[in-house]
């Protein structure tokens, strides 16, 4: 019985191998197409779903940004209107600066903290910190906004505590949670744990041998970091910062719940333009959306370019 099973298994694996080999040679002639076709058929449900709900919405937005609202003719008018109104340009400026500032704070502080987590010798504590980062990175949007209202709002817990302990009135000295820097504080809350999660794998790829080799050649700890570790890590760190940028740039719910009327961001502007109480202007909304897509594509192509470098270096 046993030899029989083993025999049949080998047989199949051999025929399997042969089948693969023949299918490879067949690709040049007609029958290879049928093999390919059945393979692609298995992807049809997924590809159809992506076409309908992912690719077509994007195409519609791009097409719509070049189309006049009423006539349906080709036009650059939507982009002209977008760029001629100072509040639109201002919204892009604010969105960009908030994304860059929070990506940099998150990238630098989170990057150092990631190393701290990586260097921890106590494994349960490390796992706890990673787990907690996962939770915090997922805690965003409306609940996060109200958590910060409860913390740093006018009557928030920390605001009151600082007033009682140090006799400093935060709102009296010009701080406001509902302005630019308040939003920065809230965004950093989800950027920091995200940076830790994204950077840890890159740190795990650092080989202890490299440090030993550098030390053997007379390098100090500082030299090792400056000449070996940081250059190797830099692409990963830049890639992670690009992700943080994209993360903040697309954020909508947090900003709406916290400061809908007092801060001018592109996502908020889009929702006003297409869902406004007074007028609906899909042409302008599409142009704004295309502006967002272009900026995000730049960040993401930097991200993938950096990842490719990481792969070269770390042989992944």
């Amino acid at each position, binding site marked *: 019985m046993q030899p029989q099973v083993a025999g049949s298994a080998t047989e*199949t694996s051999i025929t399997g191998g042969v089948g693969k080999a023949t299918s490879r040679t067949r690709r040049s002639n007609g029958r290879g197409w049928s093999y390919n076709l059945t*393979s692609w058929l298995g*992807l049809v*449900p997924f590809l159809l*779903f992506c*076409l*309908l*709900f*992912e690719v*077509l*919405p*994007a195409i519609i*937005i791009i097409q719509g940004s070049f189309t006049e609202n009423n006539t349906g003719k080709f036009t650059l008018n939507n982009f002209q209107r977008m760029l001629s109104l100072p509040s639109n340009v201002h919204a892009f400026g604010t969105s960009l600066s908030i994304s860059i500032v929070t990506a940099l704070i998150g990238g630098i*502080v989170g990057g*150092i903290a990631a190393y*701290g987590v990586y*260097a921890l010798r106590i494994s349960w504590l490390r*796992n706890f*910190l*990673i*787990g*907690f980062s*996962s*939770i*915090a*990175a*997922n805690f*965003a*949007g*409306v*609940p996060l*906004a*109200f*958590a*910060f209202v*409860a*913390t740093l709002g006018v009557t*928030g*817990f920390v605001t009151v505590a600082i007033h009682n302990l140090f006799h400093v009135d935060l709102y009296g000295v010009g701080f406001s949670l509902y302005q630019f820097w308040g939003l920065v504080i809230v965004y950093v*809350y*989800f950027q*920091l744990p995200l940076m*830790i999660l994204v950077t840890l*794998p890159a740190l*795990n*790829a650092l*080989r*202890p041998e490299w440090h030993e080799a550098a030390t053997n050649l007379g390098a100090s700890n500082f030299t090792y970091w400056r000449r070996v570790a940081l250059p190797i890590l830099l692409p990963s760190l830049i890639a992670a910062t690009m*992700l943080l940028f*994209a993360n*903040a*740039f697309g954020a*909508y*719910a947090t900003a*709406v719940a916290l400061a809908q009327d007092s801060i001018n961001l592109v996502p908020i502007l*889009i*929702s006003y333009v297409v869902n406004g109480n007074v007028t609906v202007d899909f042409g302008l909304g*599409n142009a704004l959306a295309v502006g*967002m897509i272009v900026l995000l*594509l730049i960040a993401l192509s930097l991200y993938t370019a950096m990842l490719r470098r990481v792969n070269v270096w770390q042989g992944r």
Partner: protein
Amino acid sequence: MQTGSSNIAGRAIADEYTRPKGKDRSRRGGFGLDRVAVIVVMLYLLIPLGATLVFGLGGGGGISTFQRIFSDADFSQTLLTSLELAIGTTLLAIVLVTPTAYWVQLRLPRARPLLDFLTLIPFAVPAIVLSVGFLEEFSGTSGPLINTLSLGLVPFMSNTLNIINTGPLLVCAYVIIALPFVYRPIDNSLRAINTTVLTEAAYSLGSGWWRAFLTIILPNIWPGVISAALLVFSTVMGEFTIASLFNIYTFPIYLNDTGQNDPYKAALLSFLSFILTLLCVLGIILLVRGRRGGSAQQGSQVDIAGAR
């Protein structure tokens, strides 16, 4: 539940818990700055949580605020809506992505770049942009280009099924948002096992494709599937952006409406949201950890989901 965490966060978390692990490495003590950074970051993450609970309980009459929340009809109704959407999205996303990822791994490795590309698009098309695209696509006024490209499905869905601003369409949008952190953990798990050998072994013992998939492959990639499912669930429970543009009254929208008037109630609701996120991520950690035994030492990774 985050009210909309970003799919970027979701993918990072899924990765953390499902990526194949390398060998452990020895570590040296740092120069102190890194420890300080860890402590600062953890305080930054913990203080708002504690403050929210204290603020919520202290300001509006303590525990009775909870009673006010639970007796609110809108609370239970919106929570139910969000639960239905979350369960629907989770099921659809898993059913759509898992067989596809397996199929690509087994039969069509050449399609992998295409899948990587399709699951990266949601990073470049944020939720607010996607929902605008949906509103235009399914408003019933789509042009000939879209009608042709969609093989006539768009006019059928928007005119005959009248799908715009309905729950099913919202679920479809959520599946797209969730793609980056559904595909990655499942793909990671598939790569970690020897898919081809397992499948050939199953074939040789007389099993068909579906049977091999359901009884051999699925149990082996269960941790990845569970991670993906919990991340989707947590994200949809908190998603605000698309629901608000679709005018569907979900829990995060209720939370936003409430919070603009009653910060104490909002604080407690936010804390409840946090507990739900906590449970989902804990579920990932415990289930995935349990499966991995000793090798889980390096920590697991969850993709970063979420609606921001």
